[in-house]
């Protein structure tokens, strides 16, 4: 398949400008959804399910510790997820 690579640009690289335009569009669509907030359905769901609180104060959840990375445990059978490692600091996407 002669898909992504256009000979003109070599290596299929987008110019910075195009990358920026693409990024803006993508974020725009994403933010459209984020701005819809939280549908009642999910508020109700979480109320019904009575989310148990784990140990640890709110501050810990809100603010990741910046100690060494320490792998979290797996998610168990339902979601066979590789643990997300701590510490995780949210950063704006680097372009």
């Amino acid at each position, binding site marked *: 398949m002669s*898909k*992504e690579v*256009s000979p*003109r640009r070599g290596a299929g*690289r*987008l110019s910075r*400008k*195009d990358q920026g*335009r*693409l*990024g803006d*569009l*993508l*974020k*725009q*669509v*994403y*933010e*459209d*959804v984020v701005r*819809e*907030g*939280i*549908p009642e*359905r*999910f*508020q109700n*769901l*979480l109320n019904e399910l009575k*989310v*148990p*609180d*784990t*140990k*640890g104060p*709110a501050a*810990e*959840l*809100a603010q*990741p*510790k910046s100690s060494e990375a320490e792998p*979290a*445990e*797996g*998610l*168990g059978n*339902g*979601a*066979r*997820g*590789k*643990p*997300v*490692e*701590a*510490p*995780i600091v*949210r*950063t704006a*996407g680097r372009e």
Partner: protein
Amino acid sequence: MNTEHPVKDSMIAAIPSLRAFAISLCGNVDRADDLVQETLMRAIAHLSSFQPGTNMSAWLFTILRNAFRSEYRKRRREVEDADGKYADTLKSNPEQHSRVEFDEMLTALAKLPPDQREALILIGASGFSYEEAAAICECAVGTIKSRVSRARSRLAELLSIESPDEFGADQSTRAVVLDKTY
């Protein structure tokens, strides 16, 4: 926010971006909301594996991504149609998303291979770092980088936003997108 329920509160706070991730992944608002619901239920069922002090949002994204993957395996035939038959079934809520580019972006995203799609969204829209995205997608940081790069090139093609040279750039992106016909 009710500070007596930090876990619940941080789950609720993550819902808007979980939905955005889900909609970008599966292209369909109803399916996305089912996916978010599934994610929340799995998260609550496995709450003991969440480590306080780590990023709740990244944890939930991991679960959602896995839930999508397992659903995707079931729907493989449907989703692997790169020619857009699957894309035609994409549905968004027209009242809330009246803009043409919303559907167009979802349609284009649906044409990307899922691993490229998720990488691009996590990096380009959700604001995760490459390291976080790699943890969520269970792959190496370098793999995320190359997936994002391939996804960008392909998406640019699909949306016709590649300018042949820098002179094309003063056309606004919106105009380019709106000019496209289905």
